């Protein structure tokens, strides 16, 4: 098997809660608690889950915005989880990110040309003219006018700003593009434009996508594979069509039944989850989903399920799910 684009092994990311005069950590928020994940080259992977599940933290660890508390992170085969900042050159050049908030993700005091040109200014020694022409090229690719480089972010609509953010991320022709809720803050018609644009760009530029989203419809449209997280752990992973056709984890099923689908709620069978997501400081013992799980058994409170393969490439972490015997992941 070829080296994955980015790979996490048993990654944990704990944040301290400090208290007292000495500001000693008194407890830890276990935002990501032992996650294995591999995104193949050229793949488009979706990371889904609800707020607090650790998906945003995980991608920030994968891009070394945070140093993981434990575990290994490899980017294009190179260990990046614990190496010094100075050795991150390849990662910083080859991996870029698009953020959810189109308003605060662009510096309001820089014009669009400066914003898009910044990665080039940092990583290359292009002349002023070469830089301007690269910026213009990527603007055109995003369906923006070449004169837009002289304008400022506040002059654009949300959808246009997101195109600018994508332009900035792609100007260096990176190998990996992380999309953090790329369309959740913009209107539906612009969302369709952006999703189509992202799909066509991926084919054109041969770039790997890792999309973080709470919107399963967006993920199903953008991603070939999907990883579902709950409270810092991966609960299900597989090809998008397998997971959607045959969700194996009760949480995935509840998540899918909750998506609004243009039909009256009265007519629908919905799996309603009781209670709220527990605190990541003191996660429940055993399976973390068991207090809210409609299918829980006595075993679930004691035994922690591992992520096991159920069918070709389709993994699930549930004690009740049908998994292939004797094949720990």
């Amino acid at each position, binding site marked *: 098997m070829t080296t994955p684009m980015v790979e996490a092994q048993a990654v944990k990311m704990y944040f301290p809660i400090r208290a007292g005069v000495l500001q000693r950590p008194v407890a830890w928020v276990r935002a990501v608690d032992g996650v294995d994940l591999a995104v193949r080259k050229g793949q488009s992977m979706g990371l889904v889950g609800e707020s607090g599940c650790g998906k945003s933290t995980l991608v920030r660890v994968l891009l070394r*915005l945070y140093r993981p508390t434990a575990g290994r992170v490899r980017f294009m085969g190179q260990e990046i989880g614990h190496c010094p900042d100075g050795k991150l050159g390849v990662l910083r050049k080859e991996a*870029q990110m698009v953020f959810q908030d189109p308003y605060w*993700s662009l*510096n309001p005091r820089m014009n669009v040309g400066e914003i898009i040109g910044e990665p080039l200014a940092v990583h290359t020694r292009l002349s002023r003219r070469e830089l301007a022409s690269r910026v213009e090229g990527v603007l055109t690719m995003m369906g923006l006018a070449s004169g837009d480089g002289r*304008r400022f972010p506040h002059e654009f609509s949300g959808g246009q700003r997101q195109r600018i*953010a994508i332009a900035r991320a792609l100007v*260096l022709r990176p190998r990996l593009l992380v999309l953090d809720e790329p369309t959740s803050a913009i209107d539906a018609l612009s969302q369709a434009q952006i999703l189509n644009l992202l799909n066509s760009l991926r084919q054109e530029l041969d770039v790997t996508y890792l999309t973080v989203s709470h919107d399963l419809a967006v993920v199903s449209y953008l991603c070939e594979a999907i990883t579902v997280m709950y409270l810092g752990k991966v609960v299900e992973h597989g090809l998008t069509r397998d997971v959607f056709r045959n969700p194996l984890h009760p949480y995935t099923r509840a998540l899918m039944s909750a998506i609004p689908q243009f039909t009256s709620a009265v007519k629908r069978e919905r799996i309603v989850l009781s209670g709220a997501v527990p605190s990541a400081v003191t996660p429940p013992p055993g399976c973390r989903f068991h207090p809210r799980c409609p299918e829980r058994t006595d075993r679930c409170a004691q035994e922690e399920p591992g992520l096991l393969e159920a069918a070709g490439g389709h993994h699930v972490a549930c004690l009740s799910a049908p998994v292939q015997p004797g094949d720990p992941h």
Partner: protein
Amino acid sequence: MALPANRPRPAVLEQIRYSGYLITKNSLTTVGFGIVLVLLVIALLAPVFVPHPEHAVLGTTNVAEALRPPSGRYLFGTDELGRDLFSRVIYGTRISLQIGTLAVGLALLIGVPLGLVAGYLGGFVDEVIMRVTDIFLSFPPLLLAIAVAALLGRSLTNAMIAIAIAWWPWYTRLMRGTVISLREKPFVEAARMMGTPATRIMVRHVLVNSLSPVIVQASLDFGSVILTSAALSFLGLGAQPPQPEWGLILSTARNYFLVAPWYSFFPGMAMVITVLAFNLVGDGLREITDPKTRRL
């Protein structure tokens, strides 16, 4: 493909026009800006229209004309040495604006970079910088300025340095707070993720976006700084005779308060108007830079 009809005007022009609109929208702000403008003109043109520049600059005396009340010849009357008060108060504007600019400027020069570094880097650096500012902030600014001025020796320059030393921690604090809230914004995260060096992030992304509150505070402080320098001069720690500094004039004038009330009145009024104007400007700037008052 149909394009929207609403391509706005160039950003900078639009910003200037919009700021102009906001300044004129609030009449008090307009008054404040107006007075400051007039003060600036007065300070710049003082040598041109003042009848007795030698009374102000050289302190030439003319005892025969001592303590004359205001008249056509002496608009504000004269002091105990027969000097034209009008000339001296007008020249005092120059000194006051100079003190304000230099003292506030020096305080900003020290305070802003420290706040930027403390807020952006956090951790140990932050801890050290902030404890030092805490020490400075634990003294009342006037007292601290008096102590430093006394230590450095009596002169106007030393008074300005003393004021700057008493003031910079406020800017450090303000700056640090703004920087911390900006540090978490996605555009800063984006810059870090693309490998932008820390110094470049601090200057190009953080500094330029965190200056507005500091500028507002600085313009509000302008008035207090002028007052403080007057207080220092009044105590004999700032300007030295025969400099026409308002605080210094007042300190002599109080001896003649009953016989020559105009002697205290005019420099006093000059100070009140100046301080008030800068406060109005500061309040106006706060409103203009407040994102909530911008647009819809």
